[in-house]
C-alpha cells in the first residue's frame, strides 16, 4: 500500500530495513495503515434539502479565504464527496487522501466556481470525480497493483445503498428513479462513472459495440435526469 505508512519501504535501503525490523518490536508507537471503523462512519447526516443557495454563498466566502465558511462547506458536503470517491477508488486510504486533495483544491485561490455552469454541489462532485478517476487510473497503470484494480469488476453500485443514504429523503427519490432504468442502462452508466473506465473500456467489458454503449449511457442519463427533474439551467 504505497500511500500508507510503510514500516520498511524499498526507499529506506536494506540496512535501514533490517534495523527497522529489529527496532519495530521495541517501539511502542508503530504506524499502522489507516482503517475506518464502522463507528467512525456514523456521524450526523449532512447536507440535505434545499441547500444550493447555501453552498453557493459559502463558496463565495471560501474564495475570500474564510476558514469558517470552508468548515461549514466541508460539513455540508463531506459525506457525499467521500462516498462517491470511495465507490470509485474502493480503498479507504486512497479515498481519504483524495478527499483531502479535493477540499484543498476547493480552498486554493483561483479554483474557479462559476454559478452559470451549475450548482456548487455539481461543481464539487465534478472536481472530486475527476480526481478520483485520475487516481484510480494511475493506480491501475502501476504494474504491481494490477491485482488490486485490474481484474476486479465494478460492484453493482446502484444496488448497494449506504446506510446513510437510507436516512435521506433525497436518496430515496434518486433510488426510485434508478429503479426505472433498465439493467443495461444502469450497468453502462455505473461502469463509466464508478469504474473509472473510458467508454471504450466499458464497451469491451460489456462486449458491446461502441456506438451502442455510447447511446446506452446517454439514454440512461437522460431518463435519470427527466425522472429527477434536473434542469441545470434553473440552478
Amino acid at each position, binding site marked *: 500500500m504505497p*500511500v500508507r*505508512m*510503510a*514500516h*520498511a*519501504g524499498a*526507499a*529506506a*535501503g536494506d540496512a535501514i530495513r533490517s*534495523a527497522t525490523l*529489529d*527496532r519495530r518490536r521495541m517501539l*511502542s*508507537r*508503530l*504506524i*499502522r495503515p*489507516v482503517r*475506518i471503523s464502522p463507528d*467512525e462512519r456514523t456521524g450526523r447526516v*449532512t447536507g440535505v434539502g434545499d441547500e444550493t443557495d447555501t453552498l453557493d454563498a459559502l463558496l463565495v466566502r471560501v474564495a475570500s*479565504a474564510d*476558514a*469558517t465558511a470552508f*468548515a461549514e462547506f*466541508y*460539513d455540508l458536503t*463531506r*459525506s*457525499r464527496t*467521500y*462516498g*462517491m470517491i*470511495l465507490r470509485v477508488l474502493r480503498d*479507504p486510504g486512497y*479515498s481519504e*487522501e483524495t*478527499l*483531502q486533495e479535493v477540499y484543498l483544491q476547493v*480552498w*486554493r*485561490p*483561483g479554483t474557479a466556481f462559476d454559478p452559470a455552469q*451549475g*450548482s456548487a*454541489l455539481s461543481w464539487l*462532485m465534478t472536481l472530486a470525480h475527476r480526481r478520483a*478517476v485520475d487516481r484510480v487510473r494511475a493506480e491501475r497503470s502501476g504494474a504491481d497493483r494490477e491485482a488490486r484494480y485490474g481484474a476486479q469488476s465494478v460492484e453493482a453500485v446502484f444496488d448497494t*445503498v*449506504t446506510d446513510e*443514504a437510507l436516512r435521506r429523503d433525497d436518496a430515496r427519490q434518486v433510488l426510485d428513479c434508478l429503479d426505472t432504468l433498465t439493467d443495461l442502462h444502469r450497468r453502462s452508466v455505473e461502469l*463509466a*462513472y464508478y469504474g473509472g473506465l473510458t467508454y471504450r473500456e466499458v464497451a469491451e467489458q460489456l462486449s458491446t459495440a461502441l456506438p451502442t454503449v*455510447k447511446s446506452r449511457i*446517454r439514454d440512461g*442519463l437522460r431518463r435519470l435526469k427527466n425522472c*429527477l427533474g*434536473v434542469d*441545470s*439551467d434553473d440552478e
Partner: protein
Amino acid sequence: MTNSTRPGFGDDGLELIDLAAVYALDAVTDAERHEIDARVTAADADVAEAFARETRDVRATMAQVSHTTAVEPPAAVRGRLLALIAADTDTPDAPVDLAARRARWRNFLLAAAAAVVIAVGGIGIATQMRQDTQPTSAQILAADDVRTVSGAIEGGGTATVVYSKEVDAGVLVMNNVAPPTEGTVYQMWLLGPSGAIAAGTMTPDDVAPSTTAVLEDISDATALGFSVEPTGGSTQPTAIFAQLPLT
C-alpha cells in the same frame, strides 16, 4: 440532452454532442478530453451551447445520484484540513484558538531552528507563517501537482504530508500524536537514492495537538521517515520506524 436529433448541427456537431455524456462522466482518456475540448472551442456557437448544456445536465444528475452513495469520512480528515487551512490564513475573524496556534508555531519554529544547527549536513525544517511574504504552504496548496499522504500512528494520532514536487516542498501535519518520551525526540528524514537526509526534530514540547511544519527540498526524496533519537537528534537515523511515501 434532447438536441441530438434536432437538425441543423451537421454531422460533426452531432457527433461531438454525442460525446458530451461520456465526457461529463470522465469516461474518456486525457487525450480524448483534450481533443473534445479543442473541438468544442472550434465548434459553432449552437453546437458548443448544446454540448455545454448536456454536460451541465449530466453533472447535475450525478450530483443528485451522490445522495445514494453518501458515507461519512473518517473524523480525522476534518481536523487535518482545518489545520492546513489555518496555516494558510490569518484573518481577524479566524477561529478563537488562533493565538494558541500561533504560540505553538513559534515554539516549533525555535525547535526547528535548533534542529538546523544540530543536524550537520542536513536541511532543517523551515517553518513559515502567513505573515511571510511568500508562504510555502500557500504555494503548495496552489500547485497543480499537490498530493497528500496520510498514516495513522499506533498509540494515537495521524501524520499527513501535503506536498508538491513542483514547489519542491511539503507541509507535515501531525494530529493528536503522542509526544516522544522524555530524553528523546522524533526526527524526520527525507529518504532517497542518496540515503537519509535529516529534516528536523520534534521534542516532547513541540508535539502539540496539531503540529504543522514545512518540509523543503523534497524533490529527490521518495519518502519521509520518522525515527526516535536522543535529545538533539542524530546525523543518521538509528532506525526508521515509519514512512510516508513521497512518490
